[in-house]
């Protein structure tokens, strides 16, 4: 993502409140790193139309991939863990093939239950000393709308040939930024293979729907997925969890980590804590180490 990223960095720096810098986060035991973009302050309307001020956090540029999630689930962060990491519960190893044959390297983690997504954030926080968590619905929507107008997606190329935004009525433009039912061919695709939005975030719409926290504690999935039709792939598109998402888990209690019938459920992470101004990036530990 070399060229679009540099374009975006310039764009983000120009946005109000965009003084904060992007940063990279090494994920212990994983080959890939997290790319974090600052989300400038702004306002977002809730479902009732009321405006809320949000901003001042970092969002991952992509959905969490298997490369990152496996490091957590499979314990690849090694035997000598910093204090606190031991206390984070880790998901069971899934009996189902959670990735459904869609792909592993560079593909978004899916079938993820809310507790597993939250535990990943806790694990990352324990490792890094920064605060990682899932976004709230408003934080997620603000990041998805990215300063554009309307409940849809701003494309990464405001004045280029790519149509600027999905207008919520046709698929024109949406296929430049989102994997959805008409174009996804029944599966997810590698993250960041489509244009980012104006905040530099890829796949906010489509591919996997993404967990955000909710007042009732159950969470919601936002942004629609590769399974959804265009009209359900917007920044407002919201899925409430139901028991149907795990109906095929033959075990009781059903897994809280893995959703046997929700291949559309993924997530991305939010970081609350600014990186130290001149902190060098830690070396990526070799994944070959036990």
């Amino acid at each position, binding site marked *: 993502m070399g060229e679009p990223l540099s374009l975006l960095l310039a764009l983000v720096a120009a946005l109000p409140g965009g003084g904060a810098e992007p940063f990279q986060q090494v994920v212990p035991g994983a080959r890939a790193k997290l790319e974090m973009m600052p989300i400038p302050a702004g306002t977002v309307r809730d479902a009732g139309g009321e405006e809320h001020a949000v901003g001042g956090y970092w969002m991952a540029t992509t959905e969490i991939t*298997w490369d990152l999630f*496996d490091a957590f689930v*499979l314990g690849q962060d090694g035997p000598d863990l910093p204090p606190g990491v031991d206390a984070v519960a880790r998901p*069971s*190893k*899934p*009996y*189902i*093939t*959670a*990735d*459904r*044959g869609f*792909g*592993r390297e560079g593909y978004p983690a899916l079938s993820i239950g809310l507790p597993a997504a939250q535990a990943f954030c806790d694990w990352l926080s324990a490792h890094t000393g920064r605060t990682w968590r899932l976004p709230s619905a408003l934080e997620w929507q603000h990041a998805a709308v990215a300063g554009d107008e309307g409940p849809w997606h701003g494309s990464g190329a405001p004045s280029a040939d790519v149509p600027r935004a999905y207008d919520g009525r046709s698929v024109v433009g949406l296929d430049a930024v989102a994997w959805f039912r008409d174009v996804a061919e*029944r599966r997810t695709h590698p993250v960041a293979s489509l244009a980012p939005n104006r905040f530099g975030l890829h796949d906010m719409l489509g591919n996997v729907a993404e967990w955000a926290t909710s007042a009732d504690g*159950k969470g919601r999935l936002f942004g629609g997925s590769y399974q959804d039709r265009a009209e359900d792939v917007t920044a407002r598109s919201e899925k*409430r*969890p*139901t*028991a*149907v998402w*795990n*109906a*095929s*888990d*033959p*075990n*009781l*209690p*059903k897994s809280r980590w893995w959703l*046997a019938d929700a*291949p559309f459920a993924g997530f991305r992470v939010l970081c609350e804590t600014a990186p130290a101004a001149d902190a060098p990036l830690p070396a990526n530990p070799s994944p070959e180490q036990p």
Partner: protein
Amino acid sequence: MASKHRTPSAREQLLEPGYGVDRRTLLGGGLALGLPLLFPRSLRAAQGDAAPRPLKVGLVGCGGRGTGAAWQAMHAEAGSVVLWAMGDVFADRLESSRSYLEGALLEEGNSARMDVPEERRFTGFESFRAVIDSGVDIVLLTAIPAFRPAHITYAVEKGCHVFCEKPMAVDVPGLRRVEAAAARAKEKGLSLVSGYCWRYNERHRELFQRVHSGAIGDLQAVYTNYYAGPLGTRPRQEGWSDTEWILRNWHHFRWLSGDHLVEQAIHSVDKQSWAFADRAPLRAIAVGGCQTRKGSEKGDTFDHFAVVYEYEGGARAFCNARQWPNSYGENNDFLYGSKGRATIENWAPYHAIETYGGDTWVYEGEGNDMYQQELDELVASIRAGKPVNDGEWMCRSNLLGILGREAAYTGRAITWEEILNSERKLGPPGMDDGVLEFGAFAHSFDEPVPGEYKLL
């Protein structure tokens, strides 16, 4: 025939499994079986004077799957199937299952469906006898696979209807005992439903029905896969004997699980067999080994298998299965015929048939809950007095798995005749009656070495 899903209430959402309560799939199952539409009548009867006699259910093996099967049994009719007795080798396993079920039933207001007082909670290796002897009509056999032959033999002897999880046995002598018990169940008019759940999946049923009706012509090849990740382990705890540690990590020991081709990918092998209308193959050739598991708790199973089954007339089936970390995952089935092909993406779910002439059929219905369907059909068959018996084909699928495994272990091409005559028993002598001793247990972490391992 697709079942109607309804929107779960807020309370049902709180309680995950509660959603299954009235999601009736029984009518679909009844039609599929050609059974009379008895359910609506018995539902009415349950509310009036002529309520059907409650069916008492015993659970043998209180792990996650057993707890699930117990829940499904208690929801196969509206309140006239009662969980009556529970048994497990370990008290903590029984207790967590019991407290979960009691809590979940309380949440949905169905506490009367469970009546398991302390005197009907049995632990230890012999608990299966106590459960079966407690006066149950149906027994759910969901313990560690290697114990199944002993369990099913006793259950049928005592006149119980049986739900029997897969695999039914880990070796051929064990499977012969299961086969004998299944035949005896047929003589006695007892129902026997297997845990090969895909055969109870509405989507799969529709696709296979079309395949068997000639939609893809003559079947030439079947490719199935089970590319999964590694299974978890339970680290050894202080005070655990060898026996306890091994039992709590049974997946990783081939004498208990049968290895993952027989324990997990057996579902793929079963669908292969279904595609071939349960005809026996001529022989199997396979590769396999263990590449990714190491260390003091790795067990003695392979982590990958690739099997080729050769059928009469030149047709072949290919089954690839493995449990590797950080690797591609897939669990799909592909059938190739002379006129077209069928694609089953089990978890998408996506079920399609494409002919080479350009016609396409895609399953568009709502599907069903296959685990509920298994117990629905078991109970419906008992109520209708028309016993079902999955015995023959379930044993055949199980034997196909053992055939592939032994072909990989030995490195030989093994014929169907040879495997039918295998006398190798994997477990210690106590497995014949399902009773072991706790204590020191000689175990090895050596996987079979092809070229050295003998088919016995």
